[in-house]
C-alpha cells in the first residue's frame, strides 16, 4: 500500500513539473504554474517520507532545516544582477547531491549492504558520479568567474586541449574499469577526483562572455547526473526530472551557441579572444570618433519619435536598469515610443537582461527579441546602446574577414542615429574594433552608464 502511495505521489509530481515548465511559455501564467510545480515537489517529498526503507528521521529533518535556512537567502536576497553566479552555485549543489547519493549507494553495497551491483546499475552509478563531480567543480569555477573572484579572462596555456583530452580519456578508462570490476574501490574514487580536476580545467579557459553557454551546458550535465541517479537507484521521478533538466540545459546551450554563431566545440576548446588579437583594421590611423555631451544627447532623445534601447552587459555591471526605465518613461511622456531590443547573449546568462529590466518595472511587452525588432531599426530615430559592443558590431554581418563574422547582431547601425553609452574606447570581449562607433550617424557618450543616464534624465526633464 505504502509503495503505491509513494508511486502515486511521484506520478503527480512529474505531471505538475511538466505543467510548471509548460506554463513558462506564457509570462502571465508562469507564476501560477511554478507554484503548482512546488506543490508537486512537496507531494514527492511526503511520498518519500513514508517509504519503508527510511527508519531514522533525525538526519533527514536536520538536513531539511539546514537546507531551508541556506536556501531562503539564496532565493530571496540575491540581487538580480548576481543571478548568473547564483544559478551556477546551485548547479554545483545539485550535482554534489547526485555525487553524494552515488557514493553512498556504492559504499553501502560493499559494506554490509544488500544486493549487488550489476553492470548496468554500476554503469549508471559511474556515469552519475563522473558527470556530477565534473559539474560540481566546473560550476564552482564558473561561479567564481562570474563573481570575479577568478579572472573572467580566458586562462590558457600551450597544449591545454591535449592535457584535457588525456585526462578525459583516463576518466573514461576508469569508468570502464569500475563497470567491469565494481568491487575495486580505488578506480571508483580516483575517477571522482579526476572528474573534479577536469571540471576545473575545462571551465578555467572559458571567458566571461561565453558563460551563457557554459552555464546552460552545466545545467544539462546536472540534469543528466540526476537522471543517472534515477537509473542507479531505480527511481522514475529522478529519471523524469533529470531528463527535463537535461533537455532544457541542452536546448539553451544550443540556442546560445547559435546566437554567437559558434559550435559547442569552439566554445569549450576555442578560448575565444584569449590572446589580445590585434584589432582588425588597426592600421595605426586613429579612426574618427564623435563624442557628444549629455546635453546634446538628451535633446536628440527628447525630440525623437521612435527610440530603441539596446542594453548589454555594461548596463548590468553599472546596475543602471532603473535609470534606463526612468529615461524611457520621460521620452514616452513627451510622445516618443520606446522599445527594448534584447540580443540572446546579452548579459552573462540566457534571458538575463529581461529579468533586470522587468525588475526595474519595464513592462515585458516592450522587450523584443532580436528577430522581432531587427526590421524596425531603419525607421528608428535614435538607437541608444548601453554597454553593448560585440552584439551590435556590423562587422559580424558585413566583414567576412572578421573573427565574429556570421554572428547574428542587432542592426543598430541602420537606425537614423545612434547614441552609444560606453566607459571608453576599449574593444569588446572579442577584442575586435567596432565600426559602429566610428560611423557618421553615431555619437559616443563616454562615462559610467549609471552616471550618464542620470545626467540624461535630468537633461531630458529640462528640455
Amino acid at each position, binding site marked *: 500500500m505504502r509503495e503505491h502511495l509513494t508511486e502515486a505521489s511521484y506520478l503527480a509530481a*512529474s505531471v505538475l513539473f*511538466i505543467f*510548471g*515548465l*509548460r506554463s*513558462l*511559455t506564457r*509570462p502571465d501564467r*508562469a*507564476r501560477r504554474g511554478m*507554484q503548482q*510545480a512546488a506543490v508537486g515537489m512537496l507531494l*514527492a517529498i511526503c511520498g*518519500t517520507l513514508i517509504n519503508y526503507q*527510511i*527508519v531514522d528521521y533525525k*538526519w*533527514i529533518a536536520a*538536513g*531539511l532545516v539546514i*537546507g531551508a535556512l541556506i*536556501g531562503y537567502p*539564496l532565493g530571496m536576497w540575491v540581487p538580480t544582477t548576481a543571478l548568473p553566479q547564483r*544559478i551556477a552555485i*546551485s*548547479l554545483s*549543489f*545539485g550535482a554534489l*547531491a547526485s555525487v553524494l547519493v552515488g557514493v*553512498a549507494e556504492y559504499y*553501502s553495497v560493499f559494506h*554490509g549492504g544488500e544486493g549487488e551491483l550489476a553492470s548496468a546499475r554500476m554503469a549508471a552509478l559511474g556515469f552519475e558520479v563522473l558527470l556530477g563531480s565534473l559539474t560540481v567543480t566546473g560550476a564552482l569555477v564558473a561561479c567564481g568567474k562570474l563573481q570575479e573572484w577568478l579572472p573572467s579572462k580566458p586562462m590558457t596555456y600551450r597544449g591545454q586541449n591535449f592535457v584535457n583530452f588525456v585526462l578525459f580519456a583516463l576518466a573514461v578508462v576508469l569508468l570502464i574499469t569500475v563497470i567491469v570490476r565494481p568491487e575495486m574501490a580505488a578506480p571508483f574514487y580516483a575517477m571522482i577526483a579526476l572528474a573534479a580536476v577536469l571540471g576545473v580545467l575545462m571551465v578555467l579557459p572559458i571567458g566571461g562572455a561565453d558563460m551563457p553557454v557554459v552555464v546552460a551546458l552545466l*545545467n544539462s550535465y546536472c*540534469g543528466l547526473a540526476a*537522471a543517472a*541517479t*534515477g*537509473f542507479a537507484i531505480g*527511481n522514475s*521521478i*529522478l529519471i*523524469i*526530472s*533529470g*531528463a*527535463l*533538466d*537535461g533537455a532544457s540545459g541542452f*536546448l539553451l546551450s544550443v*540556442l546560445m551557441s547559435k546566437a554567437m554563431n559558434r559550435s559547442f566545440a569552439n566554445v569549450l576548446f576555442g578560448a575565444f579572444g584569449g590572446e589580445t588579437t590585434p584589432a582588425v583594421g588597426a592600421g595605426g590611423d586613429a579612426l574618427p570618433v564623435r563624442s557628444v555631451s549629455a546635453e546634446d544627447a538628451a535633446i536628440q532623445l527628447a525630440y525623437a519619435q521612435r527610440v530603441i534601447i539596446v542594453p548589454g552587459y555594461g548596463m548590468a555591471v553599472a546596475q543602471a536598469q532603473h535609470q534606463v526605465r526612468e529615461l524611457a518613461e520621460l521620452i514616452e511622456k513627451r510622445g516618443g515610443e520606446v522599445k527594448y531590443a*534584447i540580443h540572446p547573449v546579452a548579459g552573462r*546568462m540566457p*534571458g538575463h537582461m*529581461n*529579468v533586470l529590466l*522587468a525588475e526595474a518595472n519595464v*513592462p*515585458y*511587452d516592450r522587450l523584443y527579441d532580436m528577430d*522581432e525588432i531587427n526590421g524596425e531599426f531603419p525607421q528608428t530615430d535614435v538607437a541608444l546602446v548601453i554597454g553593448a559592443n560585440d552584439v551590435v558590431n556590423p562587422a559580424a554581418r558585413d566583414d567576412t574577414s572578421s573573427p565574429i563574422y556570421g554572428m547574428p547582431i542587432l542592426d543598430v547601425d541602420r537606425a537614423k542615429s545612434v547614441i552609444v553609452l560606453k566607459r571608453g574606447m576599449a574593444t569588446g570581449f572579442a577584442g575586435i574594433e567596432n565600426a559602429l562607433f566610428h560611423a557618421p550617424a553615431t555619437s559616443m557618450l563616454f562615462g559610467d552608464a549609471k552616471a550618464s543616464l542620470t545626467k540624461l534624465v535630468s537633461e531630458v526633464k529640462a528640455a
Partner: protein
Amino acid sequence: MLILQLYVFVLAAFVGYMVITRVPPLLHTPLMSATNAISGISLVGSMVAAGAHRGTVATILGFIAVICATTNIVGGFLITDRMLKMFRRDPHEPKSPTAPSKKES
C-alpha cells in the same frame, strides 16, 4: 527494468524538449532557475540514503546531500517566483494601431 527506465528517460526528454522549445527568450532565466529547483528532486534519493540505516558513511553523505538538495528546492522555487512576479504587462498600454502587439507565444 532497465528497458523500462530507458523508455521513461527518452519520453521525458522528448516531452521536455517539446515544452521547452516553446519557452520565449524572455523567460529563459526563470526557466533555468525553475529546472534548477526541479532538479532538487534528488532530495528523494538523498533522504533514503540519510535515513535507511546503511552505516555511518552513507548516513553522513546522505545528510549532506539532503542539505544540498533542499537548498536548491527552497532557493530555486523562491527565486523563480520572485522573478516571475516582476514580469508584468504595461497597465496603460496605448492601443495605437501602429504598434504591433507582441505575439502570444
